[in-house]
């Protein structure tokens, strides 16, 4: 399942072209281009404020970009009507950072919801699918718990189970391991790997947890911040990313406090900021 050199158009699940997002006068994303092929686990990395969440919101059709296009399964979601967008959305799942589970429902009802809404199957079959999905994420027997009665790690796993409820071809995952202990991080990573390697789901994961990124990725992309805000710093396989000498990238991988990504303003910028010129 490693990244292949194949460029067959039918293999391309997601294609982002010249994507630009500007907030006020500040470009958050500035001409982003990348492709995700079938079966890949594509990880988007970057520091806080680099535009990862904005990019993900555009990819799932929650936000229209300033310019550029996003093709999912060959259809441009930036120009799609809400009706067309809903049709495309049935083919992908989204695992939210904090699960986004419906607090008024039980764990089982959360997972059953997309099935009840979009399939005509018998309720007893839905119940069975819910049990299967819970087994997949290692939460057998938690059907009747409310989201408030389970831990943060469990909520993330329920979110993953719900995202996989309709057996999507593509899975988006937002910071799936943030705030988890190392063991739970490994568990969530293993679940992502199971979904991609065993079930064959293509995954696009947004994360800044480097250990997790290198564990699950078949290909990676790093978004720049600060002086390189809005551009792609590097893209490649985990080995290529590790070998890339870009100091910006290396600082991020090593988790160093200072470097091209500055901890503090430079002396000149600091003076300008103090005097109100910057």
């Amino acid at each position, binding site marked *: 399942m490693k990244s292949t050199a194949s460029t067959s158009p039918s293999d391309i699940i997601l294609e982002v072209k010249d994507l630009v997002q500007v907030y006020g006068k500040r470009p958050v994303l500035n001409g982003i281009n990348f492709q995700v092929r079938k079966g890949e686990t594509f990880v988007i990395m970057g520091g806080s404020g680099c535009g990862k969440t904005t990019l993900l919101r555009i990819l799932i059709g*929650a936000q229209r970009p300033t310019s550029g296009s996003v093709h999912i399964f060959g259809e441009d979601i930036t120009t799609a009507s809400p009706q067309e967008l809903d049709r495309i959305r049935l083919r992908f799942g989204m695992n939210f950072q904090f699960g986004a589970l419906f607090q008024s429902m039980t764990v089982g009802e959360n997972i059953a919801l997309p099935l009840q809404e979009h399939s005509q199957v018998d309720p007893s079959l839905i119940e069975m699918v819910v049990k299967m999905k819970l087994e997949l994420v290692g939460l057998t027997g938690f059907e009747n718990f409310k989201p408030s009665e389970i831990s943060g790690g469990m909520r993330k796993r329920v979110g993953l189970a719900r995202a996989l409820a309709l057996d999507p071809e593509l899975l988006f995952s937002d910071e799936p391991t943030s705030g988890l202990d190392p063991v739970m991080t490994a568990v969530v990573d293993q679940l992502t790997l199971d979904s991609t390697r065993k079930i064959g789901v293509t995954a696009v994961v947004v994360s800044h947890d480097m250990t997790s990124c290198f564990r699950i990725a078949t290909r990676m992309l790093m978004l720049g911040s600060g002086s390189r805000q809005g551009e792609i710093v590097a893209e490649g396989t985990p080995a290529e990313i590790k070998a890339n000498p870009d100091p910006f990238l290396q600082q991020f991988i090593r988790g160093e406090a200072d470097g091209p990504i500055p901890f503090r303003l430079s002396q000149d910028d600091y003076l300008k900021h103090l005097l109100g010129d910057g």
Partner: protein
Amino acid sequence: MKFSLQTLLNVEGNGYGLLNVRIFGWILYGLTRRDVLVPSEILRQMIRIGVQALPMASLVALSVGFILAMQSSTELGKLGANSFIPDLVSLSLMRELGPLLIAIIVVGRSGSAVAAEIGTMKVNEEIEALRVMAIPPVRYLVIPRYIALMIMLPCLTIFGNCVGLAGGWAVCASTLGMTTSFFIEHAVHRPELWDLYSGLIKSVVFAHILITTACYQGLSVEGGADGVGRATTNAVVYAILWIIIADALLTGLFFFVL
């Protein structure tokens, strides 16, 4: 018809007017498809929004009945017209105070709860999750609440009118020595059917204003807990404001035109 309704439902934007368009669009669409309007969810909301507001609405209606009877007895008594108290209590409740006060109580109790619930769902990304799962939030969250309140507020108003009359009767019977049969005869026979209908028309309009304002404020929440608090306050303030304005307009319409 299906095509035009789909087009209507998919108009982009988030304004209050568009929310109203979507609500009517979904209800019309729901009449053509079985799985759009879910009776069990509507019933659940009827209990949460309507039935659970019954004790508070009853207490207010009973108090209003007491107040109307006591206040009118002091002035009408001077004119020797105490026999008109049942008529006054009955007409005031049916035409005006019943629909208005019950609506205001339901705004405070259920309108604020709906705005806070939907607002919290927005903050917790639950609304976003619905959209990503291709489940329209207006259809899934707003429609059951809308239909539930459109049914329950007129029901609560009728019930409140009855409780208010009981309050008026209690005062008349205990302090003015009025017989129960006399009270009922005047309170029930004096108002015309139109008096009841005009109150119910008001109640339906108030229900629409109440639930659309609460849902709109909930869906418009930005930020965190402060956003939810602001939306809840706005829902109550704007709903009461527009309900009173609508009441004045409808009363004017009934008074001058009909």
